[in-house]
């Protein structure tokens, strides 16, 4: 299912970057020894029939008709581990091993969105400390 739901995807296997953490595919990637592009299907649009209750609540609280910026959030992979890219810290945040990964990218993306929101809104997010250090008192 990964990548086949929407346009232009070259990701054929939902576990491509779990099985092969380098994920080198094209001749060019093999030549340079580096994966080019994203470690998820950037153009996969959400399947709203799979949305979680938490995300429904988030849309309602924010007054949005859809997932808004979360449509661009996907579960990706870092060093062979499932992770989500958090734009607020410009880094990957890993999915704990205790969370079982569903067998399709759409459900994985919904989990990624939910975990990312909970993390960004928590007191342990690095932005909280950064804000204390750099805000204008």
């Amino acid at each position, binding site marked *: 299912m990964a990548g086949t*739901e929407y*346009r*232009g995807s070259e990701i054929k296997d939902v576990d491509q970057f779990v099985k092969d953490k380098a994920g080198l595919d094209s001749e*060019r990637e093999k*030549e*340079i*020894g*580096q994966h*080019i*592009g*994203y470690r998820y299907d*950037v*153009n996969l*649009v959400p399947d709203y029939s799979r949305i979680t209750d938490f995300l429904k*609540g*988030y849309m309602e*609280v*924010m*007054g*949005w*008709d*859809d997932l*808004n*910026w979360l*449509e*661009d959030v996907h579960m990706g992979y870092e*060093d062979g581990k499932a992770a*989500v890219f958090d*734009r607020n*810290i*410009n*880094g*990957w*945040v*890993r*999915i*704990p091993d*205790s*969370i079982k990964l569903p067998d399709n990218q759409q459900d994985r993306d919904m989990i990624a969105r939910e*975990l*990312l*929101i*909970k*993390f*960004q*809104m*928590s*007191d*342990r*997010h*690095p*932005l*909280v*400390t*950064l*804000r*204390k*250090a*750099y805000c204008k*008192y």
Partner: protein
Amino acid sequence: MAGVTDSELKAMTQEERVDALGLTTEQLFGRSLLIEFNPDEEERYTYPWAPDIFYNKRVEIDTDELSTTELNNKIRSAMAEGNGTIVIKNPRGMHSVGVGILNRLTLEVEGSLGYFAVGLIDGPNVRIKGRVGWSCGENMMSGTVVIEKNAGSTFGAAIRGGDLVCRGSVGSRTGIDQKGGTIIVGGDTGALSGFMMQRGRMIVCGNAGKNLGDSMYDGTIYIGGEIKSCGVDAVPAELTDLDKAWLTRKLQQYELMPDKGVDHFQKIVSGKQLWNYDNLEPNEKKLIL
């Protein structure tokens, strides 16, 4: 961080605060911070520092004799008092209004704004009844912005998320350096729209000027009218049923659905010949390392 109170932090210099909070100033290499999610995290929908607001609590702010800073401070004060709907009256083309709002909010502007309107926002739903100048919604992170009339150049520059909508026409370099989110233009867009686009989607119901999508790395541009010319590495792609379904949903959401539907839209994507994320060749890496 433990043991340092807010009042103690307030009395410190910025350098002392950085030290007291244990922040590192060393340069990091690579993007991994080795942080894990906590599956049992408390469920919250807003940032810890964001004040609680109520959409049915409304306040009007008349901008007469207010400077931009005073107006933006008033907006913050109104949010701190729990107002979830703020109406700006008589803005008269004021610049940099509503910048940096990091909370859910309904912001209604009864008039036109100047440059950098609602830049750097993360969450609010904004409606501007007039026009806007350059760089409206620049670096927008999330939320919705709807402009009823026209917008200037660099509309949605470097936008990272959310929906930025202009019912009229926009100037040149729309969505320059776009990194996510959706830009929707009801009319025409100028030259070099989507320049160096990296992610996200742009819908233009009217015509596009020359060099559309020049040097785009990724993302998708949909044009309902004529394209003067495509830029370097911007190439046409097939409009699939999934594209049409997504276009229909988005355009209906903002009441911008053309009478003739979406079948006529052209889709422009990156040819990916300019991709250079691998900016260091293996041999060069060996030399450096």
